[in-house]
């Protein structure tokens, strides 16, 4: 169905579509010399910039000169009257409705079979701030917000080349969420790009309210605890990943941007690695890797040593642990699982509560409950220390938080059956799993193509920038021009 020539029919149609919706505002305007109410404006309250409508649309309409005889009224209004930065004609009801609910103003004119779509977007948005989950001591403090246009502008500010492509697409049959696929033409791998496009076409859901909705659908290895798509809220990180040859997907309504492909080494990288000296960055990155290993291994190894291989512990340590375990009624495995659950409960509660209460919760949970549990013999002090150590090291790599929890539980189950033997089986299975994973055709454990052994500049440690010769390293196929 297209727009009617009769204005009253169009008004009736709009009122029918937005029945019982008080946010839709109808404003009739009578330009000088025109029949009464010859122009109708429709817009959504709260989504528009009222000043822009008053100053750039209504005021010019009421003060305009009549159009020359025989002139196309709508075209005259578009080109000579309204003063908005964007204006276009459309006769498609779906397009008009979509535009209006997204903050544009519709202008219907009597006798015209199209309407003007005028850009008056002006909805409230959160200000730019540093993302809580990716804070840095040195470096840019900007973080994405919920508005896609603002986010894209932040990216554009960092990559001022025409090769930066931003392809728009709409996902969600009901939400009609605007998304933008960004990449640098000539740097991004064409195969990866084609694969991303192909998978995005298969996204079929009613609402896309966050980038994770898309990520879950298009990712590889959906059953794996490891993410195969990177996420970030920082524009500098997205810019860096695009320069490395990745593809980014912006989703309107969320500050979290997806970057593809996402490989394991990215989980250990931090944007701060590039803003401090490379020696310090190398140490930090190695610490993060050790943190992951310790987070998944400390508890299982401790349980294995306590229950299967006590002879491997130094005698004074064994005696100390045995003394501390006196009176604890639970086996070591249950003790560990109980404390891990308590730790995760506290962490979850701390995340969901306001920061002021969260700090109190941490103190109460960590100190009071912990020491009380030891004194009441619900748990032994060494186990509390081990769980706390594992928990803290797990927090060093937030991108692998869910993987750490799942792997740790799996390893605990294995060591409770088979001691260190079970642990080794578990770690071998984990390595095999990682080695078998791919993200958009790139190996999960990749840090460089086999043919380019000299390109491990940013894997276990970051090389000095002067030595990073290759553009995009392993994802880009082209050399620096």
């Amino acid at each position, binding site marked *: 169905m297209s727009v009617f020539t009769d204005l009253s029919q169009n008004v009736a149609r709009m009122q029918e579509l937005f029945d019982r919706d008080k946010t839709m505002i109808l404003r009739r305007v009578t330009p000088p010399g025109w029949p009464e109410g010859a122009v109708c404006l429709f817009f959504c309250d709260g989504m528009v910039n009222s000043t822009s409508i008053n100053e750039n649309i209504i005021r010019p309409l009421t003060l305009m000169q009549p159009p020359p005889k025989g002139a196309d009224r709508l075209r005259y209004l578009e080109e000579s009257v309204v003063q908005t930065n964007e204006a276009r004609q459309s006769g498609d009801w779906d397009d008009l409705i979509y535009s209006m609910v997204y903050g544009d103003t519709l202008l219907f004119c009597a006798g015209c079979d199209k309407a003007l779509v005028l850009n008056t977007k002006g909805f409230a948005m959160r200000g730019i701030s540093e993302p809580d989950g990716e804070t840095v001591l040195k470096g840019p403090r900007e973080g994405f917000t919920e508005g896609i246009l603002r986010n894209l502008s932040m990216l554009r500010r960092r990559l001022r080349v025409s090769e930066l492509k931003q392809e728009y697409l709409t996902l969600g049959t009901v939400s009609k969420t605007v998304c933008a696929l960004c990449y640098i033409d000539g740097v991004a791998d064409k195969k990866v790009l084609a694969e991303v496009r192909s998978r995005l076409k298969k996204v079929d859901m009613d609402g896309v309210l966050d980038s994770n909705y898309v990520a879950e659908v298009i990712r590889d290895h959906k059953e794996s605890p490891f993410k195969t798509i990177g996420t970030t809220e920082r524009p500098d990180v997205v810019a860096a990943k695009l320069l490395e040859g990745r593809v980014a997907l912006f989703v309107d309504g969320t500050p979290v941007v997806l970057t593809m492909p996402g490989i394991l080494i990215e989980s250990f990288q931090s944007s701060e690695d590039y803003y401090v000296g490379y020696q310090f960055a190398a140490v930090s990155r190695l610490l993060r890797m050790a943190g992951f290993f310790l987070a998944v291994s400390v508890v299982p190894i401790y349980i294995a040593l*306590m*229950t*299967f291989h*006590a*002879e491997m512990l130094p*005698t*004074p340590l*064994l*005696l*100390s*642990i*045995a*003394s*501390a*375990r*006196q009176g*604890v009624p639970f*086996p*070591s495995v249950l003790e560990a699982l109980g404390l891990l659950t308590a730790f995760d409960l506290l962490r979850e509660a701390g995340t969901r509560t306001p920061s002021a209460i969260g700090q109190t919760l941490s103190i109460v949970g960590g100190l009071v409950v912990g020491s009380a549990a030891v004194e009441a013999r619900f748990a032994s002090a060494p186990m509390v220390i081990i769980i706390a150590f594992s928990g803290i090291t797990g927090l060093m790599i937030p991108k692998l938080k869910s993987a750490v929890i799942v792997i740790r539980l799996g390893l605990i189950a*294995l060591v*409770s*059956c*088979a*001691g260190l*033997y*079970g642990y080794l*089986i*578990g770690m*071998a*299975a984990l390595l*095999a*799993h990682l080695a*078998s994973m791919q993200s958009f055709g790139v190996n999960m454990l990749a840090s460089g193509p086999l043919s380019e052994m000299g390109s491990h500049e940013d894997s276990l440690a970051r090389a000095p920038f002067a030595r990073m010769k290759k553009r995009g390293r392993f994802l880009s196929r082209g050399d620096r021009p």
Partner: protein
Amino acid sequence: MKKLLPLAALCLLLCGCGDYRELDSRDIVAGMAVDRGGDGYHLLLEIADVTAGSDDNPGARWLGLQGASLAEAIENGAGGTGRQAYLGHTQMVIVGEETARGGIDDLLGYFQRTADVHMTLAMAVSEGEAADIYQQGEADPQAAFDLARAAVQAGETGLAPAMPLYRFVADRLDEGVEGILPCVSRSGDGVHVAGAALFRDDKLVGRLDGDLTQTLLMARGLLSQGVLTVGGGENAVSFEIRACSARVQAGGRPDDLEARYDIALTLELSQSGLDGRLDAERRAEYEQLAARTVKERFETLCRVLQDVCRVDSLGVGRQIHRRNPDLWEQVGPGWDSAFSGCRITAQVDAAILGGGRSLE
């Protein structure tokens, strides 16, 4: 991954959940005294009592066990206390003199087959019954720990051989050498680790005092430090041993075997009964005195080993076995008697480092 999971599950079947033991269900055995009588084994176990004392200095309780075999005796203990005796952290096993004379192969076999037991376990032979040694230390909550530390210290200074289980077993299985273990004795002022117990195969055949033990360890290249005291009374001079090396050349004909030891000592003067002066003349005198004393002790040691005990604790046969297998084929089967007839000589060189501070 899907193929790996069944494989991993299968691997789990290869091990036993029976190894699972909580620390609470174990008695951590710190030390053990083993005596064998007509009715089987008598064990006295020192159990680290983690419910007493502090975390870093637990108390001890004593558990006497009896059984036809070691395994049965230990199982009897579990039946009495409800806890499994855990030997993974046992510091010291003392074997009674009579038990050692009867042979300790069954004991060694038990320790080797028990998965928990460390092969670094320290063993010693007591004068008299082993339980007497431990009973002496019942007032000491950490008798086994103290004894193990004393054994290590004695091994480092050459008072007694540092002979963990694995090394004794290795000697026991090797050709041309017999095992030695440290001796533990009780006196009025406590328990001491000093001297060496000489074994032929698995049976105790004799003992060496502290000086001869030190010389034996020098000859076997097992001594790296200690105190060498020569002379006696007011003229006694003590040296710190800074380094000691020994080279052995063994060979000859089956009816005329010969072994020559070259022992080089690096010493530092520690205490002199004289005026403390250490000029070149005095230094040469001391070097000659040290070398002569060690040589005399070595000759005494050889007489004890060759004529009294008739046991090759020096390892002369091992040298022949390794360097001259053809000769060993001929003398090996009757090595005990061949060793007694072997002509063993020693050349000892002593060098004194510096003079330290003198009184001058």
